[in-house]
């Protein structure tokens, strides 16, 4: 089977598995909305305050939602042994891993775009910032999945890896958070956002090339 077919076979399989448990697919979305809802309750509902905080709050919540959904990336494959099958395949593991991350992002990252307008409304984010918020989500959520995959691959063999996973992954998320929320912040103020969006795109391309290698190496370590 050629490599490209193997890649799409993995994507198709993972999407099918996710679709069978579609009730779970909505969980990261609920979580995202819930976390954002907590902020007005905690700091008060003054419109000015909320508007100033909006980009940061939305992005920190997106980060946490992405982090929580990461656990499902390799867990079930690790438990039922299909991860070992994947390691035995003749194709380079890094490409197959990329397929798994892509499928995972389609299921958990992309839907965040759907609720983003609702959250922008809650936080009083100006309408002019909406396209930038979407663009930053499209570019940055796959980045979160790609970087997070390294952490999941390192901790999938652990019984209670959740806490360590966040300790490993969150510091690596810092640049994504800075540039993504920075872009939305500037858009809300009516400033150009080209630089931030370009940097996010560059980081995404870099991560597409670089992160599958350590993820594959870490999976080999975890399975042994």
């Amino acid at each position, binding site marked *: 089977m050629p490599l490209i077919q193997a890649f799409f076979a993995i994507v198709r399989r993972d999407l099918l598995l996710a679709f069978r448990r579609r009730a779970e697919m909505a969980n990261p979305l609920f979580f995202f909305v819930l976390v954002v809802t907590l902020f007005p309750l905690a700091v008060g509902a003054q419109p000015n305050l909320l508007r100033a905080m909006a980009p940061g709050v939305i992005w920190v919540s997106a980060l946490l939602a992405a982090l929580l959904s990461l656990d499902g990336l390799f867990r079930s494959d690790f438990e039922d042994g299909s991860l070992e099958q994947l390691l035995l395949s003749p194709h380079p593991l890094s490409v197959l891993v990329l397929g798994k991350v892509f499928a995972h992002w389609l299921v958990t990252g992309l839907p965040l775009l759907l609720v983003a307008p609702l959250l922008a409304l809650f936080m009083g984010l100006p309408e002019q910032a909406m396209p930038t918020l979407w663009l930053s989500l499209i570019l940055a959520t796959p980045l979160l999945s790609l970087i997070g995959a390294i952490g999941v691959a390192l*901790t999938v063999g652990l019984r209670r890896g959740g806490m360590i996973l966040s300790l490993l992954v969150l*510091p690596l998320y810092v640049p994504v958070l800075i540039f993504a929320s920075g872009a939305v912040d500037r858009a809300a103020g009516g400033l150009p956002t080209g630089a931030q969006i370009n940097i996010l795109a560059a980081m995404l391309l870099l991560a597409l090339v670089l992160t599958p290698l350590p993820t594959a*190496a*870490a999976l080999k*370590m975890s399975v*042994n």
Partner: protein
Amino acid sequence: MSFIPAPISRFFHRTASPPHFYTLADKLLPWLTVLFLLLLIPGLYGGLVMAPADYQQGDSYRIIYIHVPAAWMSLFIYVLMAVMGGIALVWRMKLAEVMLISSAPIGAGFTLVALVTGSLWGKPMWGTWWVWDARLTSELILLFLYLGVTSLYGAIEDKRSAARAVSILALVGVVNIPIIHYSVEWWNTLHQGPTVSKMDKPSIHISMLIPLLLMAGAFKVYYAIAVLQAAKLELIKREPSAQWVKNLLEQNA
């Protein structure tokens, strides 16, 4: 590996064998201790006594002689850990794994020192214990990276797997450090608070520079001493029933 000349690879394998390394460390340690004191004592004397007070910051600037070398060491050790990680992954060299994991607490210690002294320096200069200054923020994230390494190593039961895991993590971290650094720098210029004064040292006078370099040298040698001590412990922990450990016990008895 085949592309390394045989005598060199023999040398490395001999040096890297645990008993040989253990005795080598014991031979090196006294010399390193002497070198450490030779750098530390003039460094402290020059920094705390000889160097004049700063015309703006008074004597409070003397924290520089530990703050800046500690911050240098915190980065240096992380990069060194990534190099060890690379060696451990490519050549499966046990000694590189041992050195990597022995370095982590020392590097975390230096990072903590850089943070605490930065805060203690910032209080008289900025009037507050903590400012989200670019350097302090990067240093804080570096501390999290170190803690990630130590807690991942602690969490994985099988220490061979744990060493591979932290090797991968150290390499991933070292690629991220410059990205984190520049993103934090950019973020800092964007959200510049009311306190603009930074701990910049415009052009440092020679009488202040010499003790700074001496202290930086002393910290490097301290790291060598501390990492050898930690590696000695780690080597015994890894193979407590090996023949060379038994010989060691007989020597001690």
